[in-house]
């Protein structure tokens, strides 16, 4: 007796469902990633430039805004993907019972969860593209390599989407998401070489920060925007892929346990 496969291309149907819903409110979805860099760069460019003359990153001196603009791309990828597979997926699963109805179709738990994570990554790519357009127009992404931000955003989106889904699989109420947001995502947002280079931290803290996925994502977006992608970038990509390779199976195991009753 042949057993039906647990995974197939049918997962794209769930992905397309999310895209359809996203397109209905695309203006609301597009505005934050386009306005956010304007606000931040205005604030940091005007307000900070008197305080910080320049920043040194991997031995290169650059203006603070040159350093910071690519960080925003990385941070946006993280927030978009993580919030999608945490709060939004939880709402679909717990309040809207969408997964229950999907499990009466040929779809499997694995397909639904992978579709949600891939959708989170897609959302991250769309937001990164909108933001990149603004960042580049303002002159902060002078290299053609900046286009590599899009595949980088997809990889980072898978990583953070999988982390969000792993939390969702063990979360009993929507308020519980405050815990990963304030204990994991927010500290990562602040200490991953995003607002200042890691050289500004004591050695132990810099060592710790360099293990965080957002650090590697920010390294990648910065290298891409400045045309400095190189062998070290492959290392950063490998770290992101490793995080995804751990958290995707974790979220599948967690969700199978949660949804198969």
């Amino acid at each position, binding site marked *: 007796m042949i057993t039906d496969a647990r995974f197939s291309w049918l997962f794209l149907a769930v992905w397309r*469902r999310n895209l*359809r819903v996203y397109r209905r409110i695309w203006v609301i979805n597009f505005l934050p990633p386009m306005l956010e860099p304007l606000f931040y760069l205005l604030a940091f460019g005007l307000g900070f430039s008197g305080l910080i003359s320049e920043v040194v990153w991997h031995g290169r001196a650059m203006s603070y805004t040159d350093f910071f603009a690519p960080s925003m791309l990385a941070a946006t990828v993280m927030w978009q993907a993580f919030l999608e597979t945490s709060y939004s997926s939880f709402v679909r699963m717990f309040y809207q019972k969408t997964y*229950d109805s999907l499990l*009466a179709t*040929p779809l499997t738990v694995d397909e639904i969860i992978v579709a949600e994570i891939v959708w989170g990554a897609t959302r991250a790519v769309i937001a990164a593209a909108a933001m990149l357009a603004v960042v580049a127009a303002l002159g902060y992404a002078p290299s053609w390599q900046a286009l590599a931000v899009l595949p980088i955003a997809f990889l980072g989106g898978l990583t953070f989407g999988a982390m969000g889904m792993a939390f969702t699989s063990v979360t009993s109420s929507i308020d519980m998401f405050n815990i990963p947001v304030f204990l994991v995502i927010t500290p990562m947002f602040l200490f991953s070489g995003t607002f200042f280079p890691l050289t500004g931290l004591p050695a132990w803290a810099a060592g710790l920060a360099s293990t965080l996925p957002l650090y590697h994502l920010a390294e990648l977006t910065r290298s891409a925007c400045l045309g400095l992608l190189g062998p070290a970038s492959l290392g950063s990509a490998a770290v992101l892929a490793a995080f995804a390779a751990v958290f995707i199976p974790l979220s599948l195991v967690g969700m199978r346990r949660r949804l198969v009753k």
Partner: protein
Amino acid sequence: MEITDEQPVLSVAAAHKTYGTFTAVDSVSFAVRRGECFGLLGPNGAGKTTTIRMIYGFSPATGGTIQVFGQDIRTGFRRIRARLGVCQQGNTLDPDLSVLENLLVFASYFGIKRREAEVRAAELLAFFALEAKKRFQYDELSGGMARRLMLARAIINRPDLLILDEPTTGLDPQSRNTLWDRLLDLKRQGMTILLTTHAMEEAERFCDRLCIIDHGRVAAEGVPAALVAARAGCYALEVESPEEAMAEHLHEAGIRFDRSGRRLIVYGDDKAALIALRERFCAEAGFIRAATLEDVFLRLTGRELRE
């Protein structure tokens, strides 16, 4: 495997489901033949929904065998669900989508091509009188419309077996009748249907065969009319607050009766005998009616409240 006429569309053999130390379904067996409507009846918590969930592979059975279209649900879940229509208890429509989109998107989960899905959605919207509402958003739908849309969605893949978990619970009489009319149309078109319900009168009218389950076991199975005849009889005499002498007499004479709160219900095939009983014990407080499936149900599952 191809289905022959003799082979049941669905066969449940000694299905068993435990959650920790709690046994939700304790060895349930039944079979559904092609083209029939089969009812699963039982009080709340009897194991109906769990049984249904085991059938479509939502909850894996702890023990026993479940075969749909001749395939085991454990190995053929995807092939089985491609040919199954499931209308779950409660509203699981997609609230982020319009009425029409709910149908189109659901069709895509079965791999149905866009153009084909549009044709089927248009047919179903007409069939369920939802055409004028196709652009409605989820929160603009009444309970009856939502349930009709649930049913339309469940048959978008033209299933060979339709599973309905309490399809009419919570609907007003108009919506309920509309829904039964549509279900009857589907049945006449040859659809095989498995349903759970609390509505005894509807089950009696609609189901070709049914089984009553309680405490996770099958308490009785058969054709509704035959079940009523065998388990209750043709008639029932209902008496409000009878004298104790009546119960004693019934007991001594070996006549079937039940108590329900202050009421006493006596069953029998001989109407004249029941009339005589009424004359003797309760000329004013008693009335005679036809026995129903509800009598059978209450006889088998007890009259106390299930909580």
